[in-house]
């Protein structure tokens, strides 16, 4: 069995003086699509940012993709993709130019960028369209293709369905399932439980900075 992609033990992370994560335990395997449920302020976004190497671990232990969150945070960032409410795209570049740029930041070849486009179905005329002219769903798909191009092995998605219409949500779900079946590990924080729940292979609750498996007290 391969090593877990995310492994947190008694993880504590603070925002200012507030412990946004207060002893979280979590283990996520490769290819999982994990849904984080919980009310606002429960610590879902902080958990994603901790796993992305953006928030320091102040107590406990944590490893992401085998890298230590205490000592290798910069290295973690290079292998993880975090997608929040914004897509992180350049609106005046075309879809293809965006994907090539993000791929090139990690030294990906032209062939790898094209493979990322193919994998996400970003092909044909779409490649040459400026991102500014895309629909919300197409922008999301382009952003995910950028994650693939920059070789992100762990995708951390914060409310990925927000702002998308029904067709774009279906498209996004299909994309995520396809990515997970290709080996990517995906963690989704969402309030849209019906939509994200049907996508997830596993669900956990985030409550007051701790993680609970559903059905356990």
């Amino acid at each position, binding site marked *: 069995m391969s090593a877990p992609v995310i492994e947190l033990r008694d993880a504590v992370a603070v925002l200012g003086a507030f412990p946004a994560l207060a002893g979280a335990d979590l283990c996520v395997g490769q290819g999982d699509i994990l849904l984080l449920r919980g009310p606002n302020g429960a610590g879902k976004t902080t958990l994603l940012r901790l796993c*992305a*190497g*953006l928030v320091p671990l102040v107590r406990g232990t944590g490893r992401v993709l085998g890298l230590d969150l205490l000592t290798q945070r*910069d*290295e973690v*960032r*290079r292998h993880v*993709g*975090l997608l*929040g*409410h*914004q*897509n*992180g*795209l*350049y*609106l*005046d*570049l*075309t879809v293809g*130019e965006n994907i090539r*740029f*993000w791929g*090139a*930041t*990690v*030294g990906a070849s032209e062939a790898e960028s094209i493979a990322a486009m193919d994998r996400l179905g970003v092909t044909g005329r779409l490649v040459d369209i*400026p*991102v500014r002219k895309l629909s919300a769903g197409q*922008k999301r798909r382009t952003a995910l293709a950028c994650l693939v191009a*920059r070789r992100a092995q762990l995708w951390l998605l914060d409310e990925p369905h927000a702002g998308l219409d029904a067709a774009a949500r279906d498209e996004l779900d299909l994309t995520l399932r396809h990515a997970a079946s290709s080996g990517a590990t995906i963690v989704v924080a969402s309030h849209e439980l019906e939509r994200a729940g049907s996508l997830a292979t596993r669900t956990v609750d985030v409550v007051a900075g701790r993680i609970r498996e559903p059905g356990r007290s």
Partner: protein
Amino acid sequence: MNVWRLARLVARKDLQIEWNSRVLLNQVLPFAGVTMVIFAFALDSDAVLERVAPGLVWLATMFSMLVLVQRTFAVETDDGALDALRVAGTDARAIFLGKAMSLGAQLLVLEAVLLLAAVVLYRQTVPVGGAVLLVTTSISATCGLAAVGTLYGGLAAGFRGRETLLPLLTLPAVAPVLIGATRAVEAALGTAGAVVSDGWPWVGLLVVFAVAFGVGGSLAFGPLIDE
């Protein structure tokens, strides 16, 4: 990835954005041209214009630079791309150097156009002996302006009211460039009896300024944008 390679990548991306959007060509250059014409209307005297032309060129450059800097960071913040670069672990020094290189390239085009406008509108002539000084001044002043613009543009990008904050931060900081570049260009053009040799000490000031802000900016840029 090597910092300089990454910086070239960022610069190329910014220049591609400019090529796609044509903001320099369609907005900044016309703005700079209009500024030069308005200076001529305001001063309304050939003798005065000939005397103050070098200063007006650099003033117009700095006002136009503010538009360019706003633009270069607007493309980063419109859809959270700057955050995404940092999240992806991209070296902040490379982002700073890349954006400064791209801004510098656009400033050089702008300065060339403004100098041409000064020749046409303000009856300036460029003596052969002053050409080297003129080019050296332009390059060294551009490096300083690009470094300051990128540093403060990155700082202001994270704040509300950045449109007004940027000039407040930038214009006082680039005052030494305005003074040094104006004196050096006066020497290059022979304005008011100045000779070429008068200009080189000012170029020295411009180089020191560019190095200080280039090195300081590349070190400070990461913490500034992370805040």
